């Protein structure tokens, strides 16, 4: 069934179709419509879930962890300051192997107060052990929530489904809402092998000495490494059931491309329009949108850049004192590869500043004038 809906409601529909059983959430702009719709769904009985209206994001994630370890499929959503407040619990969810799925609306971190998009909130959580999916359309949001549960529960690793503030969260798009029966076939009920129950009493997360801790984290990393293949496999399965492929990367006109943008989020769709314009002007351009940031698809990025002559990573984020964060990862993906193309790093769109087709053209013009990267960060659209 096709519906026109905002990105936030796409998250709610994803959580509903996945038959989330416990939702614990706290409101924050620009996430509020996610929880408003979910609480309506719980109230009118169209979703059989417990909605816990907690008093903070920290408690939201704590409650999700508690529900997850008890064996319930668990969903929440937040943004920016809320995500930062959850930080401690994000480690808890991943370290404890609780496959919570969370929507995060990419919003800039204060101060000054900002409600507009950039990625520093979610990328500040890159080392917590959560999978991170960055979406570019509302269709992708609803589909990815369903896929994320499947992957997360197979690996017992939590996942964030991430969308840009306003550019997606409040943008109405046409969404083909997946059929519930097909979703049920694609995503069976959550049945963890070990859970918190008096029938099999165990203590979870107790004091762990240095003789054990490292092995437990080694296991987390090893399972994370299984995720790229599983995301591709479940993405193909999704395509079979719903006609839409969900993968690690979204390569647009990259096959014969000499120059590619490397992008994420909604900017990764705007870049397509820029690619079309550049192609019309005779530049063999392409756009490689990175959809899954954690685990980082190193091998796939390396492969995608094999025949490229130059790549420009456009980051809507900045690791202050270093680089744009996708830029760091892309560089490390091709490090040491014979014939790896020069890769340049650009930062644009912080605090919700628009990233336009013209922004990408400016990036392309700059990149093509350079032999190699000679600045740590090239700023786009900043009044220097």
């Amino acid at each position, binding site marked *: 069934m096709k519906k026109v809906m905002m990105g936030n409601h796409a998250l709610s529909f994803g959580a509903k179709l996945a038959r989330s059983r416990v939702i614990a959430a706290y409101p924050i702009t620009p996430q509020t419509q996610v929880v408003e719709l979910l609480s309506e769904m719980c109230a009118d009985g169209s979703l059989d879930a417990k909605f*816990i209206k907690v008093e*903070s994001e920290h408690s939201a994630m704590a409650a999700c962890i508690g*529900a997850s370890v008890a064996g319930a499929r668990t969903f929440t959503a937040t943004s920016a300051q809320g995500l930062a407040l959850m930080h401690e619990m994000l480690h808890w969810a991943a370290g404890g192997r609780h496959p919570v799925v969370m929507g995060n609306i990419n919003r800039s971190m204060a101060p000054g107060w900002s409600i507009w998009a950039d990625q520093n909130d979610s990328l500040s959580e890159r080392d917590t052990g959560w999978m991170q999916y960055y979406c570019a359309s509302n269709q992708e949001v609803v589909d990815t929530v369903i896929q994320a549960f499947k992957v997360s529960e197979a690996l017992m690793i939590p996942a964030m489904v991430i969308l840009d503030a306003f550019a997606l969260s409040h943008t109405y798009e046409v969404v083909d809402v997946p059929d519930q029966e097909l979703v049920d076939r694609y995503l069976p009920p959550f049945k963890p092998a070990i859970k918190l129950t008096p029938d099999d009493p165990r203590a979870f997360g107790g004091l762990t000495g240095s003789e054990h801790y490292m092995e437990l984290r080694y296991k987390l990393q090893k399972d994370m490494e299984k995720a790229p293949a599983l995301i591709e496999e479940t993405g193909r399965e999704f395509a079979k059931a719903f006609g839409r492929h969900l993968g690690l990367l979204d390569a647009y006109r990259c096959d014969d491309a000499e120059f590619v943008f490397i992008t994420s989020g909604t900017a990764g769709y705007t870049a397509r329009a820029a690619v079309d314009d550049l192609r019309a002007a005779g530049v063999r351009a392409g756009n490689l949108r990175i959809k899954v940031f954690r685990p980082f698809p190193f091998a796939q990025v390396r492969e995608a850049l094999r025949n490229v002559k130059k790549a420009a990573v456009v980051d809507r984020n900045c690791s202050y004192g270093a680089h744009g964060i996708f830029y760091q990862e892309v560089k490390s993906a091709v490090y040491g590869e014979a014939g790896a193309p020069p890769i340049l790093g650009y930062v644009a769109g912080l605090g919700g500043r628009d990233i336009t087709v013209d922004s990408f053209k400016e990036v392309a013009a700059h990149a093509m004038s350079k032999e190699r990267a000679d600045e740590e960060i090239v700023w786009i659209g900043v009044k220097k």
Partner: protein
Amino acid sequence: MSTEAKKPKKMTLSIPPEELMACGHLACQGCGATMAMRYMLKALGQRTALCIPACCWAVIDGPYPYSSLDCPIYHCAFETAASTATGVKAGLDMVGDTETTVVAWAGDGGTFDIGLQALSGAAERNEDIIYVCYDNEAYMNTGIQRSSATPYGAWTTTTPVKHFKNRPKKDLVGIMAAHRIPYIATASVSHPEDLVKKMKKAKAISGTRFFHIYAPCPTGWKSRPEDTVKLARMAVQNAYFPLFEIEDGEKYTINLKLKDKKPVDDYIRIQGRFRHLKPEQIAAVQAEVDARWARLLKLAA
């Protein structure tokens, strides 16, 4: 010593014989918190799920991959006992287990200080959990630092003798009563029968139930391990820590009426943490205890 000398009579135990706590745990000698756990589990039984934040019990239970309790435990973040328990209860309900009692089990630091927001949130929502604060009046697990449960006059490693704590203990039970939750009780390890009875009563009530259990700590109070029960009993008898219940935030019942209320003097003097107190300061403690007791009598009248 021989058992043949006397014919054994049938023993009558005043608390349930079932043990859900095994030996080998890591509590200090004479630990009140450990006794509190043992009594609570005797009352609630095996179908109990515990959420334990950072506190002595995070260590007492034993390190990975061990546990001393025959109940499921989730070791949760410091400030999340109430919120994690909320989630566990919701999760169990949604997977069809509506029978298990969910308990948040936290120390005074995790309750009076860092976990107060989550506790207040859970109580305001009237989550169907039992929240137990075992109170040893300081951050004992980290090495005896003051908490807002530390009483007036006490030495801790962050309130040295020259700057001992000169503010009274936070009235947490009063705060919880203001949430109008169905059941609140104080209990003491010196009165296990009373503790078990009230815990069983609480188990049959739904909604948020709050227990404040007095649990002396020989390590932190600089008292003798063998005096743990004695100290707890003295605190009950001198109204330093009276035993009472509050139903629906309003109906106060004093469980142990004090016909002959003892002075606090003896109680203070056998604890190293109060050694520096001068007579006038002990008199100030007495005045505070008397005032609190008078107020409680009024509320329970």
